[in-house]
């Protein structure tokens, strides 16, 4: 789609250079840890070496005797104010600091407040804690067995470790299709615990001003407004009212979902500041970040597909055990404890489907948040794309041909899925065909056949995913009751420049640039003249924040709607200035002119000036608007990815030789930024596919709790991504846009896994769980008689 505005205006479709960059490339960004306030104290946290243990005694004596150590805060201290427990976003509860027992390794046990970070660290070393170890439950399946130790002894009536059961779809109809199916396949798939590991860890500075009673918190959060409300609800009884709380989310060094929850460290820092009246900084280190912050995934899935012999898919049935750790602290919309997992019918036209998920407590950190993914969508996509390949291979069909046969056809949109979603728009075959052409699919299949003859292992993997983003319509979507709308407030200044504030919060997505482009598109004011601000709850309108690829679909739409309100008023002013009837005015980006007399025109800048200097009688002065946008539906971006892998028979190493990604996210605001989002998303798809995992031994000891063993890919492991696009606009979004930040993370793991299995299928290999480590591949190779 060619841009409608000139490059000078820089509306949609222009690769406008980012407004954020000038400060970042000079080292002039302001991240939380960059802020230093006079008299600031530092908080550091004592953590549990045990996954499950009774706390017998916490002895702060030695710590308190150290120079610079001011206080050791324990659960007992917080219990005086009833702040030792807090609600999670899923209406479960989690500890801020424990009083009786710890429930996972690295859990917060006590906090040390000191005059600098070195002294705080010394204090942590000196706090003595006596524990009595309790039996540990690591495996969620064992946690469900009768006789398993009940973990949540704090809940009086809790007699087991089962959190909730959730199911969706027509069970009877699905079972019926399965009974009559010509072909069925069944596969266990495990999606391990992983961690977003944004390069900036989490932290905050809490500053409670005793005189004004106002609490200001600079915080690494993706959702500042929701956090403010949560703080007010949790701490209302100790006098923190919402108008006296200001959350500032400054520059954020990557979020990806990990900066949505409220972590105990934030709450303790706030408590410490309220107690002392001094600013208190808490910054977690990398090991704390990996070991204690909310995790993603940990889904134990059993999936079944039913199909006809000719390869037509008929039904999908899934049972899942979701390991939530000791508390369900996922960040899902309340109505959907398994997030949007029921997008699992993917890009295919099913007659029937049924999904069941059971949430389980174990002795692990709480969570179940996203990993750059819209609420459990990767889990869904990985499952369906793995299963599609299994059936295709089983039937001897080419996986591409199989997909083309089963895709929902363009003319079926809007399409109602077997699990109740209404897909807005799509052209799945178009994206797959483009990807096949770009990568040279037929030629690669020939090469693979040749190599196979020589005993070399090469695989080609496809993933044709459908995403579901932009939560969401208030009818179904809320977090803790807060509806998932988002907002924009625009003020046009007399000289035609503007400031716009949004309820979201960029963590690298480039909102300052793309939002300005949306407004430039709608108002014709150059993007360069529009200042975008987010993240300060005292100034920005209320919104639910940035995660689940919702910024463009929801806040972006709010921006467009607010701009249109401004345009409506501008039309009235223009009519007044031009002495013409409103309906005789024609809009083109940046000006109104009189129909048939293009020279009789007023620019938006002239109109803005008039709004303050010469506005019509009876009209309020000024040119401002606010919009709270409640989307009518979600948006459904999609794409087709193809990867080519080579496998080393001696070592089991997998090399991604090529990776082509064709994405469709509807109308694009900034192609440069969209491509960047896809590159990043693909890398966060590669990472869990081949490298990242957090596991636990039988004692609940975390494995992979530092960057030594939690393996973020470097530039050397990461392939040179090849991207392309198709464009199928969303019919309901005011700009026809869909959201793109997470598509690649969601789609890529299956493309890589399918390629590896494709390389090994002829040996008898049917499935491999991610991360696909050399050791796992080696084992499969040797089991199937292949060696160097």
């Amino acid at each position, binding site marked *: 789609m060619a841009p409608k505005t000139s490059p000078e205006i820089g509306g949609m479709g222009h690769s406008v250079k980012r407004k954020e960059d000038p*400060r970042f490339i000079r080292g002039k960004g302001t991240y939380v*840890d960059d802020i230093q306030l006079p008299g600031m104290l530092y908080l550091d946290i004592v953590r549990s070496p045990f996954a499950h243990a009774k706390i017998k005694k916490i002895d702060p004596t030695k710590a308190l005797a150290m120079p610079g150590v001011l206080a050791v805060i324990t659960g007992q201290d917080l219990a005086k104010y009833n702040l030792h427990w807090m609600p999670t976003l899923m209406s479960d509860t989690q500890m801020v600091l424990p009083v009786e027992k710890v429930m996972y390794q690295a859990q917060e046990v006590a906090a040390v407040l000191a005059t600098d970070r070195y002294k705080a660290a010394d204090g942590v070393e000196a706090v003595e804690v006596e524990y009595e170890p309790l039996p540990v439950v690591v495996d969620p399946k064992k946690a469900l067995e009768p006789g398993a130790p009940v973990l949540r002894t704090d809940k009086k009536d809790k007699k087991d470790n089962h959190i909730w059961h959730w199911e969706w779809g027509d069970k009877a109809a699905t079972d019926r299709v399965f009974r009559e199916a010509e072909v069925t396949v069944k596969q266990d798939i495990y999606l391990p615990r992983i961690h977003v590991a944004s390069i900036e860890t989490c932290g905050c500075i809490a500053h409670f001003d005793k005189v004004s009673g106002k609490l200001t918190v600079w915080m690494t959060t993706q959702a500042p407004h929701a956090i403010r409300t949560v703080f007010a609800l949790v701490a209302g009884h100790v006098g923190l009212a919402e108008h006296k709380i200001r959350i500032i989310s400054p520059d954020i060094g990557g979020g990806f979902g990990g900066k949505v929850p409220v972590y105990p460290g934030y709450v303790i820092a706030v408590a410490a500041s309220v107690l002392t009246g001094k600013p208190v900084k808490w910054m977690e280190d990398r090991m704390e970040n990996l070991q204690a912050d909310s995790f993603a995934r940990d889904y134990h899935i059993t999936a079944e597909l039913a199909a006809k012999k000719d390869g037509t898919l008929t039904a999908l049935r899934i049972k899942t055990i979701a390991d939530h750790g000791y508390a369900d602290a996922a960040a899902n919309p309340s109505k959907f404890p398994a997030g949007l997992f029921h997008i699992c019918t993917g890009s295919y036209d099913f007659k029937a489907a049924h999904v069941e998920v059971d949430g389980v407590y174990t002795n692990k950190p709480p969570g179940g948040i996203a990993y750059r993914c819209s609420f459990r969508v990767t889990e869904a996509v990985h499952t369906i794309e793995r299963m599609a390949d299994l059936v295709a291979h089983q039937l001897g069909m080419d996986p591409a041909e199989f997909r083309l046969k089963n895709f929902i056809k363009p003319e079926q949109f809007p399409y109602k899925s077997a699990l109740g979603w209404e897909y807005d728009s799509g052209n799945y075959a178009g994206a797959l065909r483009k990807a096949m052409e770009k990568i040279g699919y037929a030629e690669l299949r020939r090469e693979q056949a040749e190599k196979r003859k020589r005993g070399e292992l090469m695989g080609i993997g496809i993933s044709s995913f459908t995403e579901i983003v932009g939560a969401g319509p208030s009818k179904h979507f809320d977090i803790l009751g807060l509806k998932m709308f988002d907002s924009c407030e625009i003020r046009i200044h007399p000289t035609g420049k503007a400031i716009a504030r949004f309820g979201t919060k960029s963590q690298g997505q480039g909102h300052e640039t793309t939002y300005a482009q949306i407004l430039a598109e709608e108002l014709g004011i150059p993007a360069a003249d529009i200042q975008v601000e987010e993240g300060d709850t005292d100034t920005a309108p209320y919104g639910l924040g940035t995660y689940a690829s919702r910024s463009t679909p929801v806040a972006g739409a709010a921006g467009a709607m607010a701009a249109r309100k401004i345009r409506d008023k501008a039309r009235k002013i223009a009519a007044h200035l031009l002495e013409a009837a409103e309906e005789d005015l024609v809009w083109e980006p940046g000006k109104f002119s009189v129909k048939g007399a293009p020279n009789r025109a007023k620019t938006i800048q002239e109109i803005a000036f008039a709004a303050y200097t010469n506005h019509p009688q009876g009209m309020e002065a000024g040119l401002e608007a606010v919009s709270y946008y409640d989307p009518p539906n979600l948006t459904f971006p999609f794409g087709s990815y193809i990867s080519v892998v080579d496998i080393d028979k001696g070592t089991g190493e997998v090399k991604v030789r090529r990776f082509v990604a064709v994405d469709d996210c509807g109308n694009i605001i900034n192609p440069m930024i969209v491509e960047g989002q896809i590159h990043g998303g693909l890398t966060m798809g590669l990472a869990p596919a081949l490298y990242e995992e957090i596991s636990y031994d039988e004692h609940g000891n975390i494995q992979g709790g530092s960057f030594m063993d939690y393996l973020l890919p470097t530039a050397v492991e990461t392939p040179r991504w090849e991207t392309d696009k198709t464009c199928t606009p969303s019919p309901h979004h005011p700009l026809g846009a869909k959201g793109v930040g997470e598509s690649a993370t969601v789609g890529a793991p299956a493309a890589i896994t399918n390629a590896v299995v494709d390389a090994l299928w002829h040996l008898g290999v049917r499935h491999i769980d991610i991360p696909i480590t050399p050791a796992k591949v080696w084992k499969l190779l040797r089991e199937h008689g292949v060696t160097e």
Partner: protein
Amino acid sequence: MLVQVAINGEKHEAEVEPRLLLVHLIRDILRLTGTHIGCDTTHCGACTVLLDGRAVKSCSVFAVQAHGKEIMTVEGLEQDGKLHPLQEGFMQEHGLQCGYCTPGMLMASYAFLKKNPQPDEEQIRRAISGNLCRCTGYVNIVKAIEYAAAKLRQGGS
């Protein structure tokens, strides 16, 4: 202990504990906050600075070790109001998103281009393999460094 260093050509001194890490001297005491901390275990490279011309991870050097030495941080790249070609390249090629790893990337590639002004893609990827980026997928960072290399070869600052 007294530590005297020249950072970006400017002399500074501070009385510090021997255990103070160089990155904390730079950030917390001298208040140059462009240098970031991302992992603490020498894996992420967000804290990369130049120490007597060598790119090092300042989270794994004690401030006292830098006594009498020249340090260059991201704040020293821009000269007389003119961006360094690397800074320009990162902006032109969209080599950054959240910006957190960017200063480390810039400093690692600055030192690298001094040694190897005409690198190929593989060499660039190796050169920045001590710096983790979670946002960009590295493709555009590689392009940004190529952009700067080309510009520097043409005599751009």
